């Protein structure tokens, strides 16, 4: 079936696989059965129980061990003659540098986050090695091919930024369960069990509320000699009671919104102190428990608990966490596989929802939201892995004309479940892989270097830590280890007009802009221009070359049926992850912009995506 040429290429190919999870297991198996014999595999994760429904190289007794290592051992059992090198490491670590990547004929990604994908993309470009990218979400999947100079790189089309919420929605005016989950995770859980030194809005709210009711200064801290139970009771009354009352005082906020209801334990669970005493006496001692739910007799994680039971779980989980993890308190980070953390966050989110008139959810659903859990099954990964290998073979035999981006749908579209699309040519103004330099029209006698840095390099090119050079002279750079006299030089450079710089910038000068962290570099060809229209060109500078300026959710992958960004669907973090929108919005104000898109826009986009995909489909089908 395979030609002699293909077999020869397969036999001598050196493959780098990044990721040994859902796609990785299937991919490693398929590669090896296809005849590949030299595979390096990087994965930093360890095996979890929830992996076992699809990552079939792992067994129950492997839980906790390195995915890369166990995958290698499992495959060697049925193909002892292949060479597999497993790295239990983070692909972003410096050991996997450009030289490392240059060892391979092709790189195959089976990752689950955008950040690592972009990193690998840039290294593949730097090393000149083709990359086959992929992702799956439930029944949806895709395989894309990225060959430097021939096709788009992974970043030529901007990927949707992770969802963020305005800080005030989280701290004061939630209207959806997810807002309450983010509050429970980032504010409540972090404040009680995580880094106390981190500034936390709960503190300021509680201060307000506590001065109003003349209580202790630090109501959210366990006091000396205090029982964990009384501490938990107090925390409840503060975060769900006093704090809400304090918030209600701000009448403006509630003019057109439903007012939250303050909740106090003496109303919801008047006998709670007795209950707690009783449970200890009955042998359900907190230090022997690992789950508040099971201690309380709540067996079904898919059931929506009553407000009373949610309150019980909230209090009980605090008690058990203190009893079993007292040393770790102050350093705990929310982990979706930590049963107690999930119980605490679910209960806290539900109580807050109840207060604000938002429907409560089951632990199962809340865990999914809090942990950004993506649904996954074995079959989609198997399909995608097969497609990856087919694309890899085409690359190895330089059969680039047949390289395809393939999208796996849940329901057939135009009778096709797998939609192959020809890759696009590189985006000539892609920040990352652009071969052509950009041009900057500017009045070199009237514009300062600072203007170029702020308005062009940082704002338009999204370069965060630029190094600006003319030839071998550094005109400006940022960094922590810079020498004092260099810093002085750069500061004075910023205020100089371009023509007045130590190496003058005039018409025809080429400036290079680099960012080592991002491994990004591009050239700016300077064109002097005297006049700029004040209204149309208020910056007094024009960057030419078409590009995609704002990375908004409107610009998604052109996949019918929605984005399939691997397992990176939603990251509901209030203000932790800096997105491109954060950068742009920092200019405008304090809060991150709402990236929620309404249903009409969603539908429009879906129609547009389908039309575009169909157009492309027609192009590739016409060839047959």
């Amino acid at each position, binding site marked *: *079936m395979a030609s002699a040429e293909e077999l020869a290429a397969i036999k001598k190919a050196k493959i780098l696989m990044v990721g040994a999870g859902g796609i990785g297991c299937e991919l490693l*198996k398929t590669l*090896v*059965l296809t005849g590949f014999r030299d595979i390096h595999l990087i994965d930093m994760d360890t095996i979890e*129980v*929830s992996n*076992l*429904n*699809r990552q*079939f190289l792992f*067994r*129950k007794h492997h839980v906790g061990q390195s995915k890369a290592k166990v995958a290698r051992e499992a495959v060697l*059992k*049925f*193909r002892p003659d292949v060479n597999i090198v497993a790295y239990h490491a983070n692909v972003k670590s410096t050991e996997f540098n450009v030289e490392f990547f240059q060892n391979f004929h092709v790189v195959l990604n089976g990752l689950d986050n955008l950040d690592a994908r972009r990193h690998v993309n840039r290294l593949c470009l730097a090393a000149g090695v083709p990359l086959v990218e992929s992702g799956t979400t*439930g*029944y949806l999947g895709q395989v894309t091919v990225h060959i430097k100079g021939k096709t788009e790189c992974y970043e030529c089309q901007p990927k949707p930024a992770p969802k963020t919420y305005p800080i005030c929605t989280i701290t004061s005016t939630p209207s959806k369960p997810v807002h309450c989950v983010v509050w429970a995770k980032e504010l409540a859980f972090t404040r009680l069990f995580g880094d106390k030194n981190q500034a936390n809005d709960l503190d300021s709210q509680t201060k307000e509320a506590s001065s109003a009711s003349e209580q202790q200064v630090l109501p959210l801290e366990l006091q000396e000699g205090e029982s964990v139970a009384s501490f938990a009771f107090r925390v409840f009354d503060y975060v769900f009671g006093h704090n809400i009352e304090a918030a209600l005082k701000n009448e403006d906020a509630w003019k*057109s919104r*439903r007012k939250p209801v303050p909740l106090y334990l003496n109303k919801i669970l008047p006998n709670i102190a007795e209950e707690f005493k009783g449970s200890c006496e009955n042998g359900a001692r907190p230090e022997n428990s690992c789950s508040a739910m099971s201690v309380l007799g709540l*067996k079904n*994680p*898919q059931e929506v608990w009553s407000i009373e039971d949610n309150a019980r779980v909230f209090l009980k989980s605090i008690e058990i966490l203190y009893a079993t993890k007292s040393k770790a308190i102050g350093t705990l980070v929310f982990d979706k596989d930590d049963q107690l953390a999930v119980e605490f966050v679910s209960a806290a989110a539900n109580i807050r929802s109840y207060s604000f*008139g938002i429907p409560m959810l089951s632990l*199962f659903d809340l865990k*999914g939201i809090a942990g950004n*859990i*993506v*649904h*996954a*099954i*074995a*079959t989609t990964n*198997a399909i995608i892995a097969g497609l990856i290998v*087919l694309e890899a073979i085409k690359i190895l035999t330089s059969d680039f004309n047949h390289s395809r981006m393939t999208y796996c749908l849940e329901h057939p579209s135009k009778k096709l479940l797998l939609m192959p699309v020809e890759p696009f040519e590189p985006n000539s103004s892609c920040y990352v892989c652009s071969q052509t330099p950009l041009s900057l029209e500017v009045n070199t006698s009237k514009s300062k270097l600072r203007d170029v840095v702020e308005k062009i390099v940082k704002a338009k090119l999204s370069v965060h830590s630029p190094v600006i050079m003319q030839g071998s002279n550094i005109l400006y750079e940022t960094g922590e280890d810079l020498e004092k006299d260099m810093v002085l030089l750069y500061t004075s450079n910023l205020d100089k007009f371009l023509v007045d710089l130590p190496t003058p910038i005039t018409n025809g000068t080429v400036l290079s802009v680099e960012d080592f962290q991002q491994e990004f570099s591009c050239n700016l060809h300077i064109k002097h221009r005297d006049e700029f229209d004040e209204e149309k060109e208020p910056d007094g500078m024009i960057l030419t070359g078409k590009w995609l300026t704002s990375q908004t959710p409107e610009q998604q992958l052109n996949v019918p049926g929605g984005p399939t960004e691997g397992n990176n669907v939603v990251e509901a973090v209030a203000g932790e992850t800096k997105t491109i929108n954060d950068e742009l919005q920092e200019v405008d104000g304090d809060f991150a912009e709402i990236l929620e898109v309404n249903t009409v826009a969603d539908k429009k986009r879906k129609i547009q995506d389908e039309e575009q995909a169909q157009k492309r489909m027609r192009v590739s089908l016409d060839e047959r």
Partner: protein
Amino acid sequence: MAQRNNKYDRQLRIWGDHGQAALEHASVCLLNCGPTGSEALKNLVLGGIGSFTIVDPSRVEAADLGNNFLVSWENLGQSKARSVCALLQELNESVGAKFVEESPEALLDSNPSFFASFTLVIATQMPEKALIKLDETCRQQRVMLLVARSYGLAGLVRICIQEHDVIESKPDNPVDDLRLHKPWPELKRFVDQFDIDAKDQLEHQHIPFAIILVKVAEEWKAAHGGRLPSGSKERAEFKAAVRARKQSDDEDNYKEALASAYKVWAPPTISSELHSVLDDSAVEIHSTSTDFWILVAALKMFMANDADGDLPLDGAIPDMHSYTEYVVILF
């Protein structure tokens, strides 16, 4: 229970408890355990089917080692079915595993009732003649059949089922059936509480659009002899009547009302497909009827006896710009 939930967590989020239960009640028969059959069965085993039985007469040969990871060199010369069965069992201890060292064609000839005990038969790499016979046998015994063949880079999958019913359909676009044209008594009483000409701005902009439409529809019916708007002229007039009650430009509930006005004069009807289901002979249920047909029979009785020929209300309502209390009461 918790372990099982953890293991299946990611797929439970796709098909829920009922889906998982259906899987766990399924027994699957695989005919021929070459690479095609083995890969298919592997995915089912990982998902947690109740049990499987492999039917395959062959022995493991050197060539098999190259394309099927569920046989190993230690099994050379031994039954392939046994080898695949053992390795599959490792993937999921909760799944029952059996094998029969016989050719599927021979089994089909000598003991067709063998297949009756399975939920699903997966037939791989079998010749057409045998498949036709297999299909007849399966249909008679109400067993689902899935046929798969692969040739190099091409392949086919074919589903052969007599009848497949779905009860929890989870439609992508739920149909809103608000009965705006024919409000039932409780809804009417609720609607009467509202005054869509209320002067209080906050009050006015929070009246659910469904209420607005019912009110205007009642007024229209009163003025037009009990009829609903028909024809484009009357429909335009109806919309104008709705628009006339707007008090300010950014009342979202009025925007929603105008967008959904068509629901007043074009209510959901009972489709011909639904009629053919209701009129199917299977509606005359008996002791072996499936849940699906029992539900259909109940539906038919409801429509005839309780509902004047109408379908029962779904109870789902679309998003409405309003106070939460009103929406809750509506629901």
